[in-house]
């Protein structure tokens, strides 16, 4: 009898075991999570007739670059976030985006004629080859800037992904459909913080205003979205601005008018901040080409 009780106690100490009860994933299970799904399971990778592969590759590249560069900026909050819980939240969002980047780069390599793998896009291209919007590469000056940037980019990307989910290319459509749930959470996270900080203390309000002023000159480039996303640009612009207006109004903030910074990351014209970011991101891969774990 007492042996039985000890055995039950020992099991109860590992709470995640009871959460995982009833799962039969076997070897597919690692750590404690279960039931993982392959977002491209059952998706036909053949390019349908009538799809312009150059256009498709350009879209995948720009979306992949946005995600990779954002993920790197978010990862830089590790050990620096204001709270441990926020650090994990930001890292989670970065990892969501990194997952999107991997799928988009892989698709790009399939359709741009080079046959490159995802690592070739992330680790062996120079800054001029990147097509991310410049807002993604700007360094975080404080947590308020991180929140405002995330709010803008997640709102725009969510509006776009909602439309790309019905794209003619089945892979891009699947990646977009999977991304919608992720981006909905990213946008909600950013909006929650925008409300707290905008409607918080005098200092938090001041920092949010400063962050909006720093982001505003780059907003036009995000919304313009040319040349890669010209087909959806107008509708996505309207939806993005409507979301920003709603959140900022509730937060007691507004979007300042600002002259656009000349150039466009979408054409490979970047700020001086992208090169150091990529140097750090690519340093190990470039020092040890083709190395494997």
């Amino acid at each position, binding site marked *: *009898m*007492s042996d039985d009780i000890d055995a039950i106690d020992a099991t109860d100490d590992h*709470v*995640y075991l*009871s*959460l*995982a*009860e*009833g*799962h039969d994933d076997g070897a597919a299970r690692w*750590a*404690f*999570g*279960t*039931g*993982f799904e392959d977002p491209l399971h059952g998706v036909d990778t053949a390019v349908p007739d009538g799809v312009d592969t150059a256009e498709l590759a350009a879209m995948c590249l720009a979306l992949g670059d946005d995600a990779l560069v954002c993920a790197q900026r978010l990862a830089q909050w590790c050990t620096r976030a204001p*709270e*441990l*819980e926020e650090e*994990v*939240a930001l890292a*989670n969002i970065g990892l969501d985006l990194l997952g999107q980047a991997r799928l988009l780069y892989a698709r790009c390599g399939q359709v741009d004629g080079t046959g490159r793998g995802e690592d070739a896009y992330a680790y062996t291209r120079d800054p001029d080859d990147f097509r991310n919007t410049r807002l993604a590469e700007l360094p975080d000056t404080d947590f308020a800037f991180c929140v405002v940037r995330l709010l803008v980019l997640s709102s725009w990307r969510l509006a776009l992904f909602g439309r790309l989910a019905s794209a003619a290319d089945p892979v891009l459509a699947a990646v977009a459909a999977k991304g919608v749930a992720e981006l909905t*959470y990213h946008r*909600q*996270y950013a909006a*929650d913080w925008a409300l*707290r900080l905008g409607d918080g203390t005098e200092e938090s309000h001041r920092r949010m205003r400063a962050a909006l002023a720093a982001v505003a000159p780059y907003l036009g480039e995000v919304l313009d979205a040319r040349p890669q996303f010209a087909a959806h640009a107008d509708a996505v612009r309207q939806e993005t601005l409507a979301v920003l207006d709603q959140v900022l109004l509730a937060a007691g903030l507004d979007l300042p008018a600002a002259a656009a910074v000349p150039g466009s990351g979408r054409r490979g014209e970047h700020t001086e901040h992208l090169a150091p970011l990529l140097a750090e991101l690519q340093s190990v891969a470039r020092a040890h080409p083709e190395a494997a774990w």
Partner: protein
Amino acid sequence: MSSDGTGTAERDWPLYEVFVRGKRGLNHVHVGSLHAADDRMALTHARDLYTRRNEGVSIWVVRSTHIAASTRDEKDPFFQPSADKVYRHPTFYDIPDDVPHI
């Protein structure tokens, strides 16, 4: 942050206890604790900290101060009396195969 009314928690967020229900689990299981400024933030933090590896489909959070707990001093009077009452287990019945969760 000042909603607890103590006025002493200006800088430190209060502690919450987190309960997660697994996909096919029947009940919420205590998985740990975290700091958050309010209930809404506690839920998002719990989502980020405790379900990031696909562990759950439902989360409860509750302020730790709202949990009433038995103390170590009460251990013997609370729990010792049940240690030798084997007859309280309904082991003398045949349970039909189609009755679940017993």
